């Protein structure tokens, strides 16, 4: 492939007009600038999180390198029990939630991928309508309270158990499996459940990986349901605690102590340290999900492709 492509590329470079060259230069410049703008906030947070808090407070504007070096902010974050508890809660919600997500989505997608189901269209309509209509926030909230999901661990799992979009993506994946493979299994006397487990799931690994990651990221980042449905601080996920630390515009939010409950001893009890803790908390809460991302980027991209075929 490379051998065929190379001469062609060379030829086109020779024939480049001035206009094309100007275009190329502009293009590279614009994209480089955009990339730097996209990357800068991430760098800024990283640099600030290890900077000396006093110097950081005095500094104005762009940060191109850490100002001094200290890990005090991280020490405070990791010593803080409420944040650690939030971390633990998030891991539980993400683990359990994603498991429920996957089981439910596989069931839904499998049912909708059956060709010979009498009520298939009915089920499809029931599901599709929900993409366009909803009851709204308040009736939803009242219902959650009525069915006992208020201030309950399951409030973080059941209301988000399914995403219609992911069912459709996975169904498209299931449908692309050749019919003959299933028929062969049927002749061998396999039950429908064993067809699902031994034929369909192993052949849909890539799509499964995609929706697994969608759910994983969604669950990790979820905060609104927690804010609305959870009352007990012991149950708060990491993102809700992050909201208290970072976003203090809400008069009714209960911000205990400084920086969302991070205990700062009196000697260091300054705004400078509170600021430093913000940066460190951002890093600590974001790094796990950003670490996952480069390894799985190709799957994510593939998932958008699958979705786009559907759309």
């Amino acid at each position: 492939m490379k051998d065929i492509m190379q001469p062609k590329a060379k030829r086109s470079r020779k024939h480049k007009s001035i206009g094309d060259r100007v275009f190329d230069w502009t293009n590279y410049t614009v994209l480089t600038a955009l990339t730097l703008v996209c990357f800068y906030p991430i760098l800024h947070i990283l640099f600030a999180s290890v900077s000396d808090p006093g110097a950081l407070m005095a500094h104005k504007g762009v940060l191109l390198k850490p100002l001094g070096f200290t890990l005090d902010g991280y020490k405070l974050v990791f010593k803080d029990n409420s944040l650690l508890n939030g971390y633990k809660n998030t891991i539980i919600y993400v683990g359990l939630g994603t498991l429920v997500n996957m089981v439910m989505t596989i069931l839904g997608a499998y049912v909708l991928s059956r060709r010979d189901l009498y009520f298939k269209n009915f089920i499809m309509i029931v599901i599709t309508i929900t993409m366009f209509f909803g009851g709204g926030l308040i009736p939803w909230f009242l219902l959650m309270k009525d069915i006992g999901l208020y201030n309950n661990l399951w409030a973080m799992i059941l209301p988000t158990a399914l995403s219609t979009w992911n069912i459709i993506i996975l169904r498209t994946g299931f449908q692309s499996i050749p019919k003959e493979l299933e028929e062969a299994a049927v002749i061998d006397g396999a039950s429908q459940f064993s067809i699902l487990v031994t034929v369909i799931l192993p052949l849909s690994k890539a799509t499964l990986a995609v929706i697994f990651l969608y759910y994983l990221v969604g669950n990790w980042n979820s905060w609104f349901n927690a804010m609305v449905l959870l009352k007990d601080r012991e149950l708060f996920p990491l993102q809700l605690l992050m909201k208290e630390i970072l976003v203090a515009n809400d008069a009714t939010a209960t911000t205990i102590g400084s920086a969302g409950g991070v205990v700062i001893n009196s000697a260091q009890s300054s705004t400078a340290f509170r600021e430093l803790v913000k940066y460190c908390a951002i890093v600590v809460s974001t790094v796990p999900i950003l670490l996952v991302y480069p390894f799985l980027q190709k799957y994510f991209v593939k998932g958008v492709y699958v979705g786009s075929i559907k759309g």
Partner: protein
Amino acid sequence: MEILRKPREMDPVGLNPKPKNTKRLIQKDLKKNWFVYLMALPVVAWFLIFCYGPMWGVMIAFKDFKPLLGFADSDWVGFKHFIDFFTGPYFWRVVKNTLLLNVWGIAFGFTAPIILALLLNEIRSSKFKRTVQTITYMPHFISLVVVCGIIHIFTANEGVVTQLLSFITGKDYSSLLGYSNLFRPIYTFSGIWQSIGWDSIIYLAAMSGIDPSLYEAADIDGVGRVKKMWYITLPQISPVIIILFIFAIGGLMSSGYEKIILLYNPLIYDTADVIASYVYRRGLREASLSYSTAVGLVSSIVNFGLLWMTNTIAKRRSESSLW
């Protein structure tokens, strides 16, 4: 629509053999596929409870709902809450803000990823392309709470963006989230920062499917790069653009209230408060449950109307539509 208009088939005497056949078909189907239906059970149950349950609960918009009395015993008040909303002081404010924020979103947020994809598509060096993509995708994975936290930090008194803006304009700015006229740019451009890379993927995917012979023909005619972009690439991906545009219009009245709740404050309600954030505040903070349900219902009806309208126009003008 047409299905609704069709008169129902009358079969009072039961002479028509069709129902029997249907019954037998269903029986056969249930016998053969009982296990599949068992699998469908939790899924259908979930949709009934978590999606259709709230739809049924919408009836409190027509009642004076008191939690102590419950759904059934609260008094019916008809359209009182709707009239209250339409004639209330905040009606125009929230409608205007919702629309304007979305006009900004469509003008800048919707076009930015298309432009990025067009530019990336013209890059030959795959190493450079991959680097740009990897970095611009990254903000997509940062949680909304953290993104808004970063916005708060960057637009604070001494924040980078505040300093930059003061430097450029020569005026002294304090915390930018305190200025009503800056909320829409902050909201829109932070949104672009977070999603420009990710949203461009779908357009790049569409571009990779364009028939290369189109470009080869243009090359023979000596057509320049910009013209090829404009006359070949863009028209070729227009079906994808149209579909996504319909979705964008359909989400017009409902989008992004989580982000607004994380960014706004009473100082800038006059530009930042949208229908959804108003519903949240009145409903969950001030406990005007029936009133805010009515407001939410208005917005979801308008939403669906817009979606339907855009889809109809798209269907008439081009071949791409949702249904």
